[in-house]
């Protein structure tokens, strides 16, 4: 057994109700021995060899932050791209200053092509947005380079603009591009189904193993930068089990990684003609033997109801969308029920991606049936994302024993856009209704679904507490939550959502010695400054990991 290390701190916020605050925590072999004061720790310290580490004397310790839903592979494809964005993005290897005019956009892109991108086969940039950057078209990109293929990826991934060199690089017959109604070669725009043609060509670069690996290293640092010590990969695999497992093991699974990843498999894997739920229950069970300390499977599985929230493909109950379009189902409702039943009977914790109030309705209708057929306590059926809902559904969530993992960032980025263009003020302002959950006593976590939102738990907490939209307006203050609830939602309640509350999520004797080290106390700062609290770094299983500056 190793020596005990005692970390002292200005304040330790334990998120453990019986002893909410402390100033010293004793750690041995990666676990917490005892938390309290140097005085109350005395019996342990008198009995065992120890050292006192005062490096956090000016800091605030919290339980290591937990993001129960993100997608490393998705992040790995985006992070190696060049960010030119209207908002500042702080990334592990660079800080991207805001670029907010047409001229500045083209100037920055020219810089990227001349410098960072000079050695790349193609330059792919992400973050373009017409509102800020005006009309960037093929000619404008040709003026930057006649020889370097340039792909400009729009901020919400719905459009790509390419220069002549990029169009030639794709290697697609010109007449095939010309006849496509959703490709406009004159302006260099690929959109809707035309977008897939460009992305398919770019995939050979975006998904090349070396770039994927480099991307995952960046994801790793991003996760650390946010102050996380535990994350959930919430739909494994994204595409290809063999490749993904190998590369994830080499990066996220490496010894120096300062966090652990709970792998939550998709309940249903296609591509092998084995479309039976029994087969999938078996496949999921077989993953368990791969588990390591850093990457492991548990009792959780992932299912989907309706389409993506950013893509406006959530299924909405009446009156639906302003423009009359319909959302989509990611799996047929009957198939959802069949798979949910198979995994319910197998005793699994089922996480369901639900974005619209109709998607949520389906999840709750099926949960009701399953409870009628085979009642379960402590099943933790989890509503993931929780975009649009109504107050009565909150009561049903509670009555059926379900819990929620929410992407509250929707309110900040999409609240006003969906108010104006998608579903109107009443429903848009109330998206991610966490205040109702808090009042009803339903447990919930906050997640980023990275890359859908920045992987910054304090940023998510800031949105949940203040509901400040992009313009600065506050949307539906009635659905704001307390700082206490927000802090639980990124620590102990997030652990609960992942079924790991016995190991992580609070600071108490016996748990993993995971801490997030803050420069300020989230309970003491003005709530509107929550996201600005600097993070020193983390302690993962007793070892400090400062954020490299």
């Amino acid at each position, binding site marked *: 057994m190793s020596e005990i290390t005692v970390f002292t701190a200005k304040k330790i916020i334990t998120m453990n109700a019986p002893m909410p605050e402390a100033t010293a925590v004793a750690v041995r072999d990666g676990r917490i021995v005892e938390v309290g004061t140097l005085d109350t720790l005395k019996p342990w310290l008198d009995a065992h060899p120890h050292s006192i580490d005062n490096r956090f004397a000016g800091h605030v310790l919290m339980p290591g932050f937990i993001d129960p839903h993100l997608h490393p592979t998705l992040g790995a494809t985006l992070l190696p791209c060049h960010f030119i964005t209207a908002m500042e993005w702080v990334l592990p290897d660079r800080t991207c200053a805001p670029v907010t005019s047409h001229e500045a956009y083209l100037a920055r892109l020219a810089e990227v092509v001349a410098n960072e991108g000079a050695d790349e086969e193609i330059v792919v940039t992400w973050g373009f947005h017409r509102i800020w950057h005006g009309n960037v078209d093929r000619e404008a990109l040709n003026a930057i380079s006649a020889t370097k293929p340039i792909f400009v990826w729009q901020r919400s991934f719905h459009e790509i603009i390419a220069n002549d060199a990029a169009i030639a690089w794709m290697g697609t017959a010109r007449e095939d591009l010309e006849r496509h109604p959703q490709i406009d070669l004159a302006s260099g725009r690929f959109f809707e189904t035309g977008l897939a043609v460009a992305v398919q060509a770019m995939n050979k670069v975006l998904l090349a193993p070396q770039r994927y690996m480099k991307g995952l290293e960046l994801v790793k640092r991003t996760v650390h930068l946010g102050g996380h010590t535990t994350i959930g990969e919430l739909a494994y695999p994204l595409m290809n089990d063999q490749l993904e497992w190998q590369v994830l093991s080499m990066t996220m699974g490496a010894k120096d990684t300062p966090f652990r990843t709970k792998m939550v498999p998709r309940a249903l894997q*296609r591509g092998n003609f084995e479309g039976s739920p029994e087969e999938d229950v078996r496949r999921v069970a077989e993953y368990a033997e791969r588990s390591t300390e850093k990457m492991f499977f548990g009792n959780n599985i992932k299912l989907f109801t309706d389409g993506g929230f950013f893509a406006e493909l959530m299924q909405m109950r009446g009156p639906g969308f302003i423009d009359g379009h319909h959302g989509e189902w990611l799996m047929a409702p009957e198939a959802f029920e069949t798979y949910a039943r198979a995994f319910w009977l197998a005793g699994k914790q089922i996480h369901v991606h639900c974005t619209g109030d109709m998607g949520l309705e389906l999840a709750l209708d099926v949960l009701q049936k399953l409870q009628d057929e085979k009642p379960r306590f402590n099943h933790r059926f989890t509503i993931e994302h929780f975009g649009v809902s109504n107050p009565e559904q909150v009561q049903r969530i509670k009555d059926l024993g379900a819990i929620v993992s929410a992407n509250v960032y929707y309110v900040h980025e999409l609240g006003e856009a969906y108010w104006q263009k998608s579903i109107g003020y009443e429903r848009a302002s109330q998206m991610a209704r966490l205040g109702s959950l808090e009042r009803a006593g339903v447990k919930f976590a906050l997640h980023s679904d990275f890359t859908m939102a920045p992987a910054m738990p304090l940023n998510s907490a800031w949105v949940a507490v203040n509901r400040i939209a992009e313009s600065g307006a506050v949307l539906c203050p009635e659905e704001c939550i307390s700082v206490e609830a927000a802090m639980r939602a990124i620590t102990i309640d997030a652990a609960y959502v992942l079924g790991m509350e016995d190991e992580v999520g609070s600071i108490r004797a016996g748990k993993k010695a995971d801490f997030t080290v803050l420069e300020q106390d989230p309970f003491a700062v003005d709530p509107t400054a929550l996201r600005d609290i600097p993070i020193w770094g983390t302690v993962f299983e007793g070892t400090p990991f400062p954020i490299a500056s």
Partner: protein
Amino acid sequence: MTPRIPVTVLSGYLGSGKTTIVNRRLAEPGPLRLAVLVNDFGAVNVDARLIEAADSPVVELANGCVCCSIGDDLGAALDAVAALPQPPDHVLLEASGVADPARIAMTVGYWPGFRLDAIVVAADAETVRKRAQDKYVGNLVRQQLASADLIALTKTDLLYEHQADDLQAWLALVAPRARLVETQFGNIPNALLIGQASPSPTAPGYHGSHADIFVTATLNPETPVNLPRLKAALDALPETVHRVKGLVEDAESGETVLVQSVGARHEITPAPGLAPTGLVLIAPRPTASLDAAVEALSRACTEPAD
């Protein structure tokens, strides 16, 4: 350039009989080299033994990212099919039961190297109207039917005559563009499903087969064809004609053009260098109106422009 490979999109919600149609195609392959892409999972699966026995490639599409096109499997599968040493003559794509076939058709129909043949939507005659009212999938089912060029109506034998009439009247409202084909046990002749019927160089005439499930008529215009008139005539064809296909000479350019018409969808594309073969009309069962159709098309083809 090499000709684009036609893709028939086979759509339909769960229980519509769509997979049975795919299984039947695999069990009874025609002379065409057909690649089958499967994108569904449901109560009925594509029969694995048939897949093994089939000499045509059968691919099941895998998951991609639900939020963006990264790792999208449909495009990758089409590219792989086109890159085969011996590319297929035709692709049959079984769309996911929850897919919007119009969107899928847009993706595959304009995918480099491919073109859309038709959107065929399967519907269970007994249950489709109830499905179309479903809380969760009613919108989707109606949207699928509305996108159809052909509706493959299964289990019509279980309906009384007045029910069948009601159903047809209802479908005419929900899917005004679509032609109807009745099928039993997934049995749709290739001629109707994928338009596989080679134009015969002989004189016009009927060729019945498949126990009179469908008939074809061939039309050989003696002079070059006035395309605007032909288009107008195709638009005016009776609902009993499901497909028209073949090569004719364009009176204006003197070049050969490929005529492909499925239901209300017509496409006339240049096919320089190919010899005109005439047009084949395909209809589901012997019908007097095929005569009238041949007559009308024939007039449109030969009359000079105003």
